[in-house]
């Protein structure tokens, strides 16, 4: 409820951030590394959720925004020798510009046509990255050199390859994006986005330029996804075209559906859940993808609103 007291949601979100911070000190190495990766990818899912969950626009091309950040940051380090902060900024900028252009073109459509158009654009982006193999490394990809992955503040420097630095960097990005999305969805702008999802025609008749509002949402969404991609390149040291493939457009959709579309914490829950289901089942059987598929089907059948969406519906109406 938008007008309810803000204390509870903020306390919950700060609590989640505090918990993730504390986990850094108790998790065994393997899970520590996995959680860092999950937090970065949850940012990708949060960006996707902005558009899919709140505005109701289903894109099948968000891999291109993630990859724009990934390549933007990674190639700036590899080819231009830029510092980590500059490369990160460039990655985000690439995503912002790309999403603005794609938004202007793709928002002429809606529904199924929007899905297809975004998928086509992402496919073009993917093929261009393959084509520019001398720059991008094609499907082999490229490693971002370790010595370059350092954050320096004057005399002190932090190596992003260090697990703790990496975890804390991932957590910092995750926390900022989480609090930003929380602020957006609770704002007047967030209310307009939901109105567009519920009934665009009616929203227009209340005086809203729905095209501009949707375009802004595409840019916010694409920029967040690019931030995730840029962080991924810098923290995990690899850029490659597989991240631009259609698989990476579908994954954030699955994470968001699992965790609960249009819930602020759903993307984290969904990403976490999916990673651990894969992780656990692949330990037992080589047919783990089958199990994952069955788990997904069961979830969609019994929890169509996703994990947090169901919890909100049944018990916690105040969940943002």
């Amino acid at each position, binding site marked *: 409820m938008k*007008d309810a007291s803000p204390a509870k949601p903020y306390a919950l979100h700060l609590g989640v951030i505090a918990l993730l911070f504390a986990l850094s000190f108790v998790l065994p190495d393997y899970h520590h590394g996995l959680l860092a990766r999950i937090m970065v990818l949850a940012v990708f899912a949060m960006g996707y959720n902005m558009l899919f969950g709140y505005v109701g626009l289903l894109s099948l091309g968000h891999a291109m925004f993630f990859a724009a950040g990934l390549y933007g940051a990674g190639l700036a380090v590899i080819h231009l020798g830029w510092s980590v902060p500059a490369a990160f900024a460039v990655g985000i900028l690439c995503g912002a510009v790309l999403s603005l252009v794609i938004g202007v073109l793709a928002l002429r459509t809606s529904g199924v046509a929007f899905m297809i158009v975004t998928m086509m654009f992402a496919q073009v982006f993917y093929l261009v990255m393959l084509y520019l193999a001398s720059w991008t490394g094609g499907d082999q990809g490229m490693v971002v050199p370790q010595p370059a992955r350092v954050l320096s503040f004057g005399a002190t420097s932090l190596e992003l390859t260090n697990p703790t630095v990496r975890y804390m960097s991932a957590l910092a990005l995750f926390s900022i994006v989480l609090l930003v999305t929380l602020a957006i969805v609770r704002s007047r702008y967030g*209310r307009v986005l939901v109105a567009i999802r*519920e009934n665009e025609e009616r929203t227009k*008749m*209340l005086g809203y330029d729905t095209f501009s509002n949707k375009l802004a949402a595409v840019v916010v969404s694409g920029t967040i996804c690019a931030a995730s991609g840029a962080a991924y390149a810098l923290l995990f040291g690899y850029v490659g075209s597989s991240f631009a493939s259609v698989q990476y457009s579908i994954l954030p959709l699955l994470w968001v559906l699992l965790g609960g579309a249009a819930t602020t914490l759903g993307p984290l829950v969904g990403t976490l859940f999916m990673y651990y289901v894969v992780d656990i089942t692949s330990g037992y059987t080589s047919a783990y993808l089958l199990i994952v598929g069955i788990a997904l089907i069961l979830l969609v059948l019994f929890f169509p609103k996703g994990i947090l969406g169901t919890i909100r519906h049944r018990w916690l109406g105040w969940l943002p």
Partner: protein
Amino acid sequence: MMPLLTTKGLSRNFGGLRAVDNVDFALMPGEIRAVIGPNGAGKTTFVSLVSGRIQPSSGMVVFDGADITGLPAYARVRLGVAYTFQITSVFANLSVYDNVALPVQRTLTDGRSKGAVRTGVMAALERTGLADRTHMLAGQLSYGHQRLLEVAMGLALKPRLLILDEPTQGLADSEIDNFIELVREIAKSATVLLIEHNMPVVMHLADRITVFNAGRILAEGTPEQIRANTEVQDAYLGTTHG
């Protein structure tokens, strides 16, 4: 005095059907104008052309002296043309509060003050008698209350011209009396264009009445003139046109 709204040669075809046919219409500021006519006469299509929901095949719409024919609907709303839907079209999955907060926040110019949205929402809900239902989902309201919510959303836009498309459809008789009072009050600050089938409501409220039939204006005049008009009686009985 200059009319608030004028249309010149306004037409709209749907395939071979001329739903609105060359309509010249003028509405004075402060007026309550009723639009009546048989089903399918083109009343909803006409006001949709005025509000910008659909584009005319030809003709023009002038609001407050400016040609708005080319403006998109949202821009017309910002100029002060508010439209409430004939088919109830509230945001069923949002709370009553949020439904009204959307138009309220749109009209706020200061943008910052925290309490302004709440104040505006409560004012619109008080006027329509929905103030005790703020937290219900709009879809859970009774049909009559959804009609009132639709009016509250129109009111919250602070319109200069409020178009009401069959607002009393589905209201109980007791609710209709309150509704007549509400429109009278709205009319103190806005011009009202009211499409209505309920003749007692029309006769109580309207300063003037425009009768549509088969896409054209058949007659226009005071309630007394319209009541006495035999052509109008024929149209309603269906003997003249289809």
